[in-house]
């Protein structure tokens, strides 16, 4: 189970209190009725689904109830930071990214294929 820091409550709480809400920083088009099928597909269905550093939304469902964003590594599952909804993607230092990389040696699927260089 993940331990997640809610940036509103400013507390580390168990994952059971939270609801994962998918990729973050997906901007909903303001003119939804006018967008092309390609843009519709991109907004609704296409996901980066990266193996490496991901930015994702969480909702503190059984807490403050608010949405916020998080930066996490999708192989080690370790969080780098969480930040309030509406804030821009944080600039992450090399040290912050290095701290959450999975061990270099593992099963084939666990080998990191995203280095810190292209994680940005």
């Amino acid at each position, binding site marked *: 189970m993940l331990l997640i820091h809610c940036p509103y409550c400013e507390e580390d709480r168990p994952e059971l209190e939270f609801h*994962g809400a998918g990729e973050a920083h997906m901007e909903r088009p303001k003119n939804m009725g006018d967008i092309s099928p390609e843009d519709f597909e991109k907004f609704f269905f296409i*996901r980066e689904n990266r193996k490496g550093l991901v930015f994702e939304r969480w909702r503190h469902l059984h807490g403050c109830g608010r949405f916020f964003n998080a930066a996490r590594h999708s192989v080690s599952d370790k969080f780098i930071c969480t930040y309030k909804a509406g804030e821009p993607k944080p600039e992450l230092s090399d040290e912050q990214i290095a701290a959450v990389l999975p061990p270099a040696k593992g099963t084939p699927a666990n080998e990191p294929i995203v280095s810190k260089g292209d994680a940005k």
Partner: protein
Amino acid sequence: MRKFSGFAVVREAMRAHKGWAEQWNTPEPRKQYDVIIVGAGGHGLATAYYLAKEFGITNVAVLEKGWLGGGNTGRNTTIIRSNYLYDESAGIYNHALKLWEGLSQELNYNVMFSQRGVMMLAHNVHDVQVSKRHVHANRLNGVDNEWLTPQQVKDYCPPINIGKSVRYPIVGAALQRRGGVARHDAVAWGYARAAADMGVHIIQNCEVKGINRGSDGAVTGVETTRGTINAKKVGVVAAGHTSVLMEMAGVQMPLESFPLQALVSEPVKPILPCVVMSSSVHAYISQSDKGELVIGAGTDQYASYSQTGSMHILTDTLEAICEVFPIFSRMKMMRSWGGIVDVTPDRSPILAKTPVSGLFVNCGWGTGGFKATPGSGNVFAHTIAKDEPHKINAGFTLERFRNGRLIDEAAAAAVAH
């Protein structure tokens, strides 16, 4: 390839089993193939097998990052059924089920396919309505599925508790008698052996690092940890890592990858005669031929490539199992593990051509791809060989997320399947 038979077993027994040969060879990769399949799981190996057998394309390489069948093929709960709601799903899963029925003979490899029946429990009025709708939809599509009363449920599966005092009372069930289980590893091994026998190269420990495209945009081959390998057609059959591979060709996918867990108990004498599933309490369970109870859990709520999952997902599942089968409450669990499943927005797979000429993708099987292995490989081989989909997989396009022709099994099942 030396044929397996009862006679061969007797013969080898009399000479200390010295005559068994390797079941597939370990070739050096050639510079050029007609078709490259990325991913040597069940679906990829089946694709290679049917390319060779039905289309005569034997100059095929199956590239595997790890070891053959070491991904989701070796991690699933081996349940086979075809009682899906929509016509397209019924088409492909029932195609697979028909192939399962003759697979051991066809491959000359015992995949231990056991049609012990898959029973999906109903616990409330809503379940009954949904299940009966499924039963009728299945029958219209020629898929066997029948409705059982609680007493019939008890007769078919004696250890189940049909008492009215339990938290999730059983008010009926849908039973697909042709459904069942198979030995998952044997499926990968059987396809690998039969494909290798026809000249297919299975190259393990060979990770694809890039997908090469020519000046016209078409695929020209792949970059691997063992050098460049050229082919005009590349089929990506990489389950949870599909997004990563397709990104190499510049194609963004409507996929998210989640850890899905399963676990097995200590082996016990035969007690559970069929597969039992419950969508409402989210539990599914069967007993392997070794005697272990095989239990499938749910996915974690966040995207991950970790091949592990959270403990609380397992405890939720075991609590549900113990509600339905109080008799199992003191069983010890031996092992649990996770695999990474690629989930599409409508929970139906994608078996299709891509915007990149020569690049094909077979993915999105989510939490239930094992049951489709033969059918998936069969129609995907057709798609690659003919450069157009078989009529069975014609609806499973990548474009459906653009044109809206979804095959919405997510809404139909409302649960992993």
